C-alpha cells in the first residue's frame, strides 16, 4: 500500500503523454461538474434558494437521453431531449412548488427540496425500474482513442468538453451582454425594483430555474453513455457541485467554471500522487479556500 506516491506524480508531470491524458481526464470530470454546478449557482444567485434537488435534474437528463436514444437511435435527439425535458420539468417544479417557498426560512426550503429528492428518485424507480441501466456509446464514437503527444484522448470526451465549453461561453456572454441577461442580473440584485418597473419576475424566476435544470439535464445526457444510470445517481454529483460552488463562490459563473476545473484536475492528478487521499484533497482544498476567502474565489462580499 502506497499512501503518497510523489514519484508517480513527478514522472507524470515530466512526461507529455501522461500530462495530456491526465489533463483531459481532469477536464471532462470538471466540465460535467461545471454544468451541474453552474445551474446550482445561477439559481442561488437569482432566486436565493439552495436547490438541494438539483441532482435529480442531472438524473432525469440521463434517463430522458437513454429513452430517446432507445426510441430513435439518434444521439443528437437524445442530448436534446435530456436538456429540453429537464428544462420543462424545472419550470413546472419551480412554478408549482418552489415559488411557494421563496423568502421562507431556509429549513422550509431545505425540507421541500429534500422531499423532492426522495420523490424524484421513486418516480425514476417506478418508470425505469430500480436496477441500474446503461445507455451505450453511439456507434459514431465507438472508435479507437486519439493519441495526442502520446497521451490518450477519447473522441467522445472532446465532444463533451466542447459542448460544455460552448454552454459556458453562451451563458457567460448572454448574462453579461444581452438584454435578458441584464434583467436577470437586475432581478438578482433588487427584485422589488425590477418588479416595480413592470417586469414579470415570476417569469424570470421560472426561466432561470428551467435554465439551471436544463444545464444539469445536459450534463446527465452527456454522461449517460459512460456512466451507469440508477435512481439516486444525482446525489454524489450534487455533493461535488456544492464543493465547486463553495470554492468558486455562490452565484458566480466564472467561479463555477474555475472551481469545477480545479476539482477535475485535483482528482486526475491527485489519484496519481495521493491514491488514498484523492477525495480528501478535494475537501482540503475547499477548507483552504474557505479559510482564506470565505466567500469563495469569485464570490462577492455580502453586506
Amino acid at each position, binding site marked *: 500500500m502506497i499512501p503518497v506516491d510523489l514519484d*508517480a506524480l513527478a514522472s507524470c508531470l515530466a512526461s507529455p503523454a501522461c500530462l495530456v491524458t491526465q489533463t483531459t481526464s481532469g477536464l471532462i470530470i470538471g466540465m460535467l461538474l461545471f454544468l451541474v454546478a453552474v445551474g446550482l449557482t445561477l439559481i442561488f444567485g437569482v432566486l436565493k434558494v439552495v436547490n438541494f434537488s438539483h441532482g435529480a435534474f442531472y438524473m432525469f437528463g440521463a434517463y430522458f437521453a437513454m429513452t430517446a436514444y432507445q426510441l430513435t437511435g439518434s444521439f443528437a435527439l437524445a442530448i436534446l431531449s435530456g436538456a429540453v425535458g429537464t428544462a420543462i420539468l424545472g419550470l413546472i417544479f419551480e412554478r408549482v412548488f418552489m415559488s411557494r417557498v421563496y423568502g421562507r426560512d431556509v429549513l422550509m426550503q431545505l425540507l421541500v427540496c429534500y422531499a423532492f429528492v426522495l420523490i424524484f428518485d421513486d418516480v425514476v424507480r417506478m418508470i425505469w425500474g*430500480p436496477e441500474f441501466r446503461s445507455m*451505450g*456509446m453511439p456507434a459514431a464514437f465507438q472508435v479507437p*482513442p486519439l493519441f495526442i503527444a502520446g497521451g*490518450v484522448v*477519447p473522441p467522445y470526451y472532446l465532444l463533451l468538453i466542447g459542448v460544455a465549453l460552448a454552454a459556458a461561453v453562451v451563458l457567460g456572454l448572454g448574462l453579461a451582454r444581452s438584454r435578458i441577461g441584464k434583467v436577470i442580473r437586475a432581478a438578482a440584485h433588487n427584485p422589488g425594483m425590477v418588479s416595480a418597473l413592470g417586469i414579470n419576475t415570476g417569469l424570470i424566476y421560472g426561466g432561470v430555474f428551467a435554465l439551471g435544470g436544463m444545464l444539469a439535464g445536459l450534463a446527465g445526457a452527456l454522461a449517460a*453513455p459512460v456512466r*451507469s444510470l440508477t435512481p439516486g445517481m444525482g446525489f454524489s454529483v450534487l455533493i461535488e457541485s456544492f464543493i465547486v460552488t463553495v470554492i468558486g463562490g455562490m452565484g458566480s459563473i466564472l467561479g463555477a467554471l474555475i472551481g469545477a476545473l480545479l476539482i477535475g484536475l485535483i482528482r486526475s492528478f491527485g489519484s496519481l500522487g495521493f491514491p488514498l487521499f484523492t477525495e480528501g484533497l478535494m475537501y482540503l482544498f475547499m477548507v483552504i479556500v474557505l479559510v482564506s476567502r470565505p466567500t469563495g474565489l469569485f464570490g462577492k462580499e455580502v453586506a
Partner: protein
Amino acid sequence: MKKTRKPGISRRATLALMGAGAATLAAPWVARAQAKTIKIGMPTILSGRVAQLGTSSRNAVMLEVEKVNAAGGLAGRQIEMVIRDSKGQPQEAARIARELVNTDGCEMLLDGEASSGSFAVHEVARDLGVLCIHTCSEASSLTADPKQHIPNAFRCVRQGIHDSIVGAGYAAGIAKAKGLKKWATCSPDYAYGRDTTGEFVLYLKKFAPDVEIISESWPKLFQPDYTEVVTKILQAKPQALYSCLWGGDLTSYIDQANIYALFTQMEVFAVNMADYTALTVVKNLPKGIHSGDRYIKTFPATPENAAWGDAYKAKYNEYPTNWSWQNATAVMFLNEAVKKANSTDGKKVAEVLTGLTIKCPFGADGTVTMRADDHTLVGYAIGWGTTIPKEPYVPDVKAGDWKTIFELEAEWKKSKGYT
C-alpha cells in the same frame, strides 16, 4: 358547518377497541389450532441500491416453494413465506428476524441478507434456537470461524475464499501461458473489495510466484466517474488487471474504460462480470474479459440448469442472479431434509441437514452438499471463463477443482486460526 365532538373516547369507540383487542389476543391461539401451514420467515433487502439482491432472492424462493407446495408441502404442510424488507440495515434485519419468529409464528428462517445483516440475523438464530439458513452472505468467516458455529444455522451460499482460490488458479494459468507478470488491481474501497482482492492476490502469487502488483486503485463504492482511475491504470501499463467491482459500478467502469481502449491493452479479470445483471446491461461488452461464474444457465451445462434458468426467465421476465440459485438451493435442501426427517421440527431437520447431499441443478457434479463440520455449502458449480458480447455470454467456463479448493481452504482456515 363544524360538527362538535365530545372530548374523550365514545362508548362505541371503546367497544370497538375492546373487540379489536380481544381478536388480537385470540389470534395466535386460532392460528396454532389450525397450524396446517408452516410459516417460513425471510428478512432481505427489497429497497434501495441493492434491491436486486432481495427481489431476485424472493423470486427464486417463490419459484421453488410453489413446486414444494404443489407436491404436498413440507411433511404435508403448505409453506407460507413471510418476506420483509430490512432496507439493508443490520439492526433492522435483526429486529425483523426476531419479530418473524416471535410475533408471526415463523418456524424457520431463510436469511436473505447481505454479509453485514447476516451476522445480525445469525445472532438472533443463536438466541432463539430457530432453524436458519443463510442464503446471500458470501463472507467466509460466517461459517469458517468456529465462534460463529451453532447447530441450528447453515449457509447455502458460495464463499469468498472458494472464489479466490478458483479465480487465482485460473488467472495464474493464463499468467504463465501468456507471460503476464505486471498486474494492477482496481476494486471498491470497502470490506468486500479489500478482502476479496487481498485473497485473490495472495493465491495468484502462490500459484504464479513471479507476478508483481504494480498499481492499486480503490475507487469509492458507487463512484459515478472512474476516468481518473482508468487513466492511472493506463499510465502504469500493466499486462493484466484484476477487479471485483460489481453491478452498476462495474458497468460504468467498462463503459468508461472502453473509450480509452483499455481492454485491448491488457488482460482483464473481473470476477463479477459473468452475472446476467451486468451482462445484459452493458451495451458494448468487450470480448474476452475473464470472469468467475455468478449464475449462468449454461454452466453447469446440464439440461436441468438450463431448464431452471428458462423457467425463472419465463416467470419473471429476467434472468436469475447469483442470489437466485442460492435461495432456490436452500428451499431444495429444506424439502429434502424434511422428507428425510419426516418432520418439520427444526431440531430434527437441522440434524438431517448436517452433511446432507442432494441432487441439484447447480451442483458441479449434479449434487451439492451441506458440509457437516462447518454447515456450509460445497460442491456447487464454480469456474471461470471469457466473455462474448451476446448469449450465452460466457461460452466456455473452466470448472474449478473441488479437491484443490478443499486443500487450500483447510490451509487458509489453519492460517486464520480457525482450526
